[in-house]
């Protein structure tokens, strides 16, 4: 400032010129260091801003954390206390009537409530047929039991009477001839003839009497038994058909909640069903089937505490109560559904009951379960030492 002012106002003088030259010289001398320094500062600023390391952050959703010091972790699947009851249909056929619709899924049913009915019209036809067939032996039995027919008895009785009279007359004739034979008024042959006539008349009378007795005694009991057996047979058949008809109607086998309803009028139901028709479950206290890897089995003891986390929630763990251990170690259930799946490992299944009331637990849902293995690990460590 001073320089330009002096140049502008008083004009160039010897002193001023030297001063200006010195200034420019120093400017030139300072230029390189100034450029260098500013570039260096720029470089330092670049390094400082670029090498800022990214700070660690928390995951978008807090992953489930074990609430215990030492833990066995396992994946669990929620199931009803009754396990999943896949209601089956005893008869195959087209569904005629449904008493529940897919909209009723989630509602409760009582044991014995009607669920759906498969086509039973052919059974009703068979029932009518059997019932009609029953009438024949029934009528036969009635006829047998109403014997003797009174209208038949009277002529026979009259016939007996007639033959009896006939026999009396023959006896009289013979007696008379017998007396006459002593007086030799008749020949021997006449007497013999009369005796034979008497014997024939007696036989005739006895036969008629016997026939009358047969008639009066009515139908023969074994005949009736045969007819009764026929009746019993057809009655049994009717009962069978009725049972079949009742089997065509499917009812709830337990008290529970309908977890799935897969029946619609007009659909065909095969036996065994090709899909889950209706799935029932007792949802009073849902359970978790926890799968423990076989390499963790040595650390597991029945009765250990456990806690479950609903996947995707930041919430508190749900406390679990030990129910039982399935003593059969099974291949790990893979949830991929791929058919070329091979088994990696086998798992011990342990059942736990969810203690808390929660709305976010559904059957079939996967949960992350942590089993408290603090006690066992402590023992193992102390033994190891």
């Amino acid at each position: 400032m001073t320089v330009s002012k002096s140049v502008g106002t008083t004009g160039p003088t010897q002193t001023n010129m030297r001063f200006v030259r010195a200034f420019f010289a120093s400017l030139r001398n300072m230029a390189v260091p100034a450029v260098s320094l500013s570039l260096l500062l720029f470089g330092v600023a670049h390094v400082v801003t670029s090498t800022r390391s990214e700070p660690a952050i928390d995951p978008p959703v807090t992953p489930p954390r074990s609430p215990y010091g030492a833990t066995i972790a396992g994946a669990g699947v929620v199931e009803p206390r009754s396990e999943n009851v896949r209601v089956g249909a005893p008869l195959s056929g087209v569904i005629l009537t449904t008493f529940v619709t897919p909209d009723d899924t989630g509602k409760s049913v009582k044991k014995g409530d009607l669920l759906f009915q498969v086509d039973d019209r052919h059974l009703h036809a068979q029932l009518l047929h059997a019932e009609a067939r029953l009438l024949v032996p029934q009528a036969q039995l009635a006829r047998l039991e109403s014997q003797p027919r009174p209208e038949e008895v009277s002529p026979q009785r009259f016939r007996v009477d007639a033959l009896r009279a006939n026999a009396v007359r023959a006896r009289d004739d013979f007696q008379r001839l017998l007396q006459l034979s002593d007086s030799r008024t008749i020949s021997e042959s006449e007497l013999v003839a009369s005796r034979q006539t008497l014997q024939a008349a007696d036989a005739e009378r006895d036969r008629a009497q016997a026939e009358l007795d047969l008639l009066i005694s009515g139908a023969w009991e074994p005949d009736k038994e045969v007819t009764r057996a026929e009746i019993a047979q057809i009655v049994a058949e009717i009962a069978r058909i009725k049972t079949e008809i009742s089997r065509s109607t499917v009812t709830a086998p337990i008290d529970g909640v309908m977890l799935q309803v897969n029946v619609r009028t007009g659909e065909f139901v095969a036996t065994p069903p090709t899909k889950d028709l209706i799935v029932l479950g007792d949802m009073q206290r849902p359970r978790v089937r926890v799968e423990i890897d076989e390499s963790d089995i040595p650390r597991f003891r029945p009765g250990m505490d456990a806690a479950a986390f609903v996947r995707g929630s930041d919430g508190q763990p749900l406390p679990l109560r030990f129910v039982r251990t399935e003593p059969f170690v099974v291949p790990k259930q893979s949830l991929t559904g791929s058919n070329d799946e091979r088994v990696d490992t086998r798992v011990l299944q342990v059942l736990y009951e969810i203690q808390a009331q929660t709305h976010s637990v559904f059957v079939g849902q996967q949960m992350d379960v942590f089993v408290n293995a603090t006690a066992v690990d402590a023992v193992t460590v102390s033994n190891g030492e």
Partner: protein
Amino acid sequence: MSWIAMRMLIGDTAKYLGLIFGISFATLLMTQQISIFVGIMKRTASQVLDVRDAPIWVMDEKTRFIDEAPGIPEGDLERVRGVTGVDWAARLYKGQVTARLEGGEFRAVVLFGLDDATLVGAPAEMIRGQLSDLRQPDAFMVDKSGYEYMWPGEPLILGRVVELNDRRARLVGICKASAPFTTLPVLYTRYSIVRGFVPGQRTLMNYILASPKRGSDPLQVCVQINKVTGLAAYTQEQFFWKTIKYFLSTTGIPVNFGITITLGFLVGAAITGQTFYLFTLENLKQFGVLKAMGVSNSRIVGMVLLQGAVVGLLGFGIGIGLTAAFFESTKNITHLAGLYLVPEAAVGVGVAVMMIVSLAAMVASMKVLWLEPAQVFRG
């Protein structure tokens, strides 16, 4: 005396600037090459660094580097969760698949399958869309440079549909991710839908991301995981270096860059050394006069060293600034994004430059030391 040394230095402008230029050039060459080398090496493990929410990586014990991990059984996730000292663990898939674009072109892409429930390993910064959109069916996200690689020159639009393994996938977000070594796009999706996106294989999960309990030593937890499950467990830093070491030992990159950096050093040293030597030689008369005036040898060596130090410092400053300017100007170019002047390079090259100038000064001052003061008056 220092003042005289400075006057001598500045007096010959051409030599002065030549010396500074030589040093600047050497600095620029070396810092730039080292920085690019470090940056490219860092890119080989950039996916490791991008996972900022999990400090521990668990994988097959024989894994050599990040792109190679084979699948491990799904049940191992539960076993890792059961290891004492592990706070939480989540599954992760990382692999490479081919994506078919709308037009029928296809691109190899790096695919991440994040744990459905927690999205551990998700990108930290979104440019378009929300992270929660990843929960939509068939959803995937791509990093910004990956988007530009897949659809060059097109504006960032969400909702694009690509085919992965003949399955439809819909773009729901564009995120920020460090560029991978192979420059492939990085796709993020959920683990459960990765099964469809990856051609059938028996085991899918190849990494487990875990976090140590608060207060426990991550290294100790890694050892514990390895002991209990037989899987390899590394902290982020360990895995980062493991991957980098793999690439250092199996690729020609270090040799290539090593040659360039050495050449930078040699050229810088040659130019500077030669110029400085000549400069000192030309000033031999002045030094002789000084010597005749009774200035001690050590004083003269000190002067030469001071000249060297000043030249070195100025040249180094300019070189560093030019390197910084280079990286600042390429910051927004996708292919060079994420490269920057690393402080180690700056410091290392600083030391190298100081070595060059002190060497040159030493050699040059030899002449002065053996100089007979009377000699300058003879001619």
